[in-house]
């Protein structure tokens, strides 16, 4: 057996336990003390993130967070990474990532209704990156589609830092009733433990310790630990589980993910202050002669652990039989406050759950990275694009900005008949609550070019951008979940990035008064040989509530002769922008997201949408004003003329006005007669605002400074550039 505990940790274990652990116990402790299960490097930092809010029913600490939508409706929401498996087997790695996040939602007794995927790869010019990209997407598509859960939104970035470590983050939301929520807890001694679903095998061993290591030669031996997903089995597990939960005989439920049975048993018994006893001979297995510790730590897919009231057992087993799904009655809840494992009636492990769940945190060293000192503070245009029109066409072709149709067309984004706003129609996806005049909006975001130059403001910005993306559809933001992706935390420079990132994220959440209801940390996204770590990336998944389906707004321009209005001020912040990256490389001052500005603009936009004044709205982010407006024109088919002199601003440089990625900005269109009302709402909210132009049907987007035209782009040509940006790399 390979042990990853350090000798120091092993000593701590002995002290805590007051004796030597036996081999089974050691296996269990080893897996639970891994970075992935224990959060030992991150937990002190994560404590800083605000998690409370009036709608929060369940915050971090359970399988997924849950928020209250009113009228008894709740939404479970969670995001998770599956980076390491995806890097070596993009198809199965991504597929089982989807499988895992679905289970997290399912075990709260909410029906999973939507998936989101947030992806990062190296550049598509390289064959290896194309292989990862195409197979990750196929993996997500095959799994999500088969389970009947629509994949409704996401984002994608391309940057060389993700070449050897692609990032695959997936989020899921589920809908349920407040009174029916079930948690991952055991509370009543005597309740029966039933393991449902896939059989336990060696295929799932050491996935966790694998995710807590960098990818190097060692993964050769680890390789069999990438699992094959079975979405058909998952679909059956979903339906059988929901049917079983509807009997109300299920008192607790947890999915088996990282740490397998060990994790489920220890966390559930710890949360309820009880104990658990199981008999491993009862577990249904894939392979004969598995060692007890293997059974205890295997992470074989598609499994759930049910805590069932004894009087309801038969009824529930009948449901499992109807679905022809395998299960085993493995043990019961006890009052011993110990997790006890038996084999042939002999006790082979007996541990207090706390030793498995409360792993001592590690205080990591942190130091400002050297690379940050290299970048010039001031951005200088060394290489100028031929002309501004050309710059716009070229930015539209950048895969990070270009159309994502190639991706989302492979995802069933409509199954479930809830999808009101599909990918491509607005910044966020909108799904209705069946039978109600309500909907939820969701989107994931992070700009890793910003976060690399400034983890603090970059992540304040990631929060702001994800929230803006749901606000533009007409949703009130209610919560976020976060997924951290960093290099090796033992490297002080990486840990500095992590700390600053969490600080920036917390700053914005506190300022906007939005709680974080869950998250996930993935470290060691780093190529050991070249010690290149991924750009620091905390993906924010934002969730919003729309309380009237009539208020939903999309991004395409709707008619000619409507007003174009910009809300929010444009600063001299072109560092880390797509424009800068395309023409000058990375460097310069990154957009600083400030919560007061965000709040002012968001409130103004939201009230204007809810009053019905806004006909189209789009968040202004990657590529700046020029690209935001271009996308609105491409989508709606109407052109526009805009005078950039009128933009609320701090500088008069046209590059900055068109391409700066300052936060807190929205572009909206409205009927001419509503302009005054919108301006007033903005003023009341203290938001900078200006009427900058008008839509037309001339088939072009024209930017001018006063009377002088500085760029004039054909919609047709822009559409072509934008549509081909990714597509041209396929076949």
């Amino acid at each position, binding site marked *: 057996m390979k042990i990853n505990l350090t000798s120091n940790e092993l000593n701590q274990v002995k002290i805590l336990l007051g004796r030597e652990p036996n081999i089974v116990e050691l296996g269990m402790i080893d897996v639970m003390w891994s970075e992935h299960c224990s959060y030992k490097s991150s937990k002190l930092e994560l404590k800083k993130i605000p998690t409370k809010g009036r709608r929060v029913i369940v915050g971090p600490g359970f399988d997924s967070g849950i928020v209250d939508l009113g009228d008894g409706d709740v939404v479970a929401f969670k995001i998770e990474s599956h980076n390491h498996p995806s890097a070596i087997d993009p198809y199965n790695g991504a597929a089982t990532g989807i499988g895992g996040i679905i289970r997290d939602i399912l075990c709260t007794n909410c029906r999973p209704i939507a998936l989101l995927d947030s992806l990062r790869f190296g550049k598509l010019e390289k064959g290896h990156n194309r292989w990862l990209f195409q197979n990750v997407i*196929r993996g997500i*598509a*095959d799994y999500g*589609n*088969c*389970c*009947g859960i629509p994949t409704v939104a996401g984002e994608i970035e391309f940057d060389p830092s993700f070449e050897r470590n692609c990032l695959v983050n997936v989020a899921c939301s589920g809908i349920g009733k407040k009174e029916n929520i079930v948690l991952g807890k055991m509370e009543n001694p005597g309740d029966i433990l039933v393991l449902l679903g896939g059989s336990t095998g060696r295929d799932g061993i050491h996935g966790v310790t694998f995710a807590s290591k960098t990818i190097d030669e060692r993964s050769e031996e680890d390789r069999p630990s990438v699992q094959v997903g*079975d*979405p*058909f*089995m998952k*679909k*059956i597990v979903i339906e059988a589980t929901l049917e079983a939960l509807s009997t109300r005989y299920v008192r607790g439920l947890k999915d088996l993910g990282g740490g397998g049975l060990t994790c489920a048993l220890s966390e559930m018994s710890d949360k309820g202050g009880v104990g658990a006893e199981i008999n491993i001979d009862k577990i249904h297995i894939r392979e004969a002669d598995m060692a007890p510790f293997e059974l205890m730590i295997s992470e074989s897919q598609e499994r759930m652990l049910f805590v069932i009231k004894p009087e309801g057992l038969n009824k529930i087993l009948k449901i499992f039989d*109807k*679905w*022809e799904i395998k299960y085993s009655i493995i043990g019961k809840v006890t009052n011993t406050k110990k997790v006890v494992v038996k084999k042939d009636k002999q006790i082979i492990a007996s541990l207090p759950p706390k030793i498995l769940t409360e792993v001592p945190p590690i205080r990591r060293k942190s130091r400002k990275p050297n690379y940050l000192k290299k970048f010039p503070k001031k951005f200088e245009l060394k290489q100028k694009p031929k002309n501004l029109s050309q710059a716009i066409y070229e930015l539209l072709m950048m895969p990070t900005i270009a159309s994502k149709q190639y991706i*989302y*067309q*492979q*995802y*069933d*984004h*409509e*199954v*479930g*008949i*809830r*999808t*009101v706003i*599909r990918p491509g*129609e607005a910044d966020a996806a909108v799904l*209705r609550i*069946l*039978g109600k005049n309500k909907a939820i909006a969701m989107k994931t975001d992070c700009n890793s070019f910003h976060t690399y130059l400034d983890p603090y403001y970059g992540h304040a910005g990631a929060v702001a951008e994800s929230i803006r993306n749901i606000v533009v559809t007409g949703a009130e933001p209610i919560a976020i979940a976060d997924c951290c992706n960093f290099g090796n935390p033992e490297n002080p420079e990486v840990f500095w990035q992590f700390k600053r990132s969490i600080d920036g994220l917390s700053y914005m959440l506190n300022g906007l008064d939005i709680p974080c209801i869950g998250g996930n940390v993935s470290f060691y996204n780093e190529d050991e040989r070249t010690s290149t770590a991924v750009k620091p990336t905390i993906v924010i998944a934002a969730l919003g509530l729309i309380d009237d*389906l009539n208020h939903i707004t999309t991004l395409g321009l709707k008619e000619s002769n409507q007003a174009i209005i910009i809300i929010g001020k444009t600063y001299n912040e072109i560092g880390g922008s797509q424009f800068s990256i395309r023409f000058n490389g990375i460097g310069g001052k990154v957009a600083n997201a400030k919560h007061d500005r965000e709040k002012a603009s968001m409130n103004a936009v939201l009230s204007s949408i809810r009053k019905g004044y806004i006909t189209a709205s789009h968040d202004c982010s990657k590529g700046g004003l020029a690209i935001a407006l271009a996308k609105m024109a491409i989508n709606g088919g109407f052109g526009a003329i805009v005078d950039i002199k009128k933009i609320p601003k701090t500088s008069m440089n046209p590059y900055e006005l068109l391409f700066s990625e300052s936060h807190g900005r929205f572009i909206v269109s409205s009927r001419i007669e509503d302009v005054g009302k919108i301006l007033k709402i903005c003023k009341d909210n203290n938001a900078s605002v200006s009427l900058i132009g008008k839509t037309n049907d001339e088939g072009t987007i024209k930017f001018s400074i006063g009377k002088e035209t500085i760029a004039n782009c054909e919609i047709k040509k822009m559409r072509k550039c934008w549509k081909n940006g990714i597509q041209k790399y396929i076949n």
Partner: protein
Amino acid sequence: MRAAVIQFPGSNCDYDVLYVLNKQLGIKADLVWHRYFRHNNYDFAILPGGFSYGDYLRAGAIAAQSPAMRELKEMVNEGKAVLGICNGFQILVESGILPGALLMNDCLTFVCKWVTLQVSSNKSSATTLIQKDKILRMPVAHSEGRYVNEKHGIKELYENEQIIFKYVCNSTDDFNPNGSMENIAGICNLERNVVGLMPHPERASESAISPQCSNDGLMIFESMIEYSKK
């Protein structure tokens, strides 16, 4: 009037169809677990979309062999209306109730998008209330939807007016999403009571969730109800 929505393991548009029948059209419709399906309890049946048995082997191939299909064949023989949507269509083809085959899309990937259809014939249980040649908007979502048949099979489909829906050009994009022969999107049997189609009418039955406010799909369900009244 009572309708059955037959649920196989892996069906995933079952609840969607049920919602349209029950909530939109006020029809009594039951979700019926495939093993419990008995044809004489129902006036018409729908095989919903999804991934029955995970699409393993071939989409619809395993469900086609299930006992539920024996029941369904009796229902078909009695002349009752049967509609197969997407995976339901695949099951009908795999069980031999409808001719031909539905193979992997030309593009080798799953395709989810809205398409334009033309009603090639209104002589079928699913189109009795729709004008011939009418244009409908509806989404597709499948990876095995390419309709293939032998030359004489296609000829027979034409001769007997069995082609019910075709993908047609709507000026943008590739209009045929999967490379189907003759742009076939849906067909019926010789007796015209069984119809299968790849697009999803249940996703186009409410303007609130349609990009162009289309509720064209509703007409297909209404046609089935009308047909079953006879």
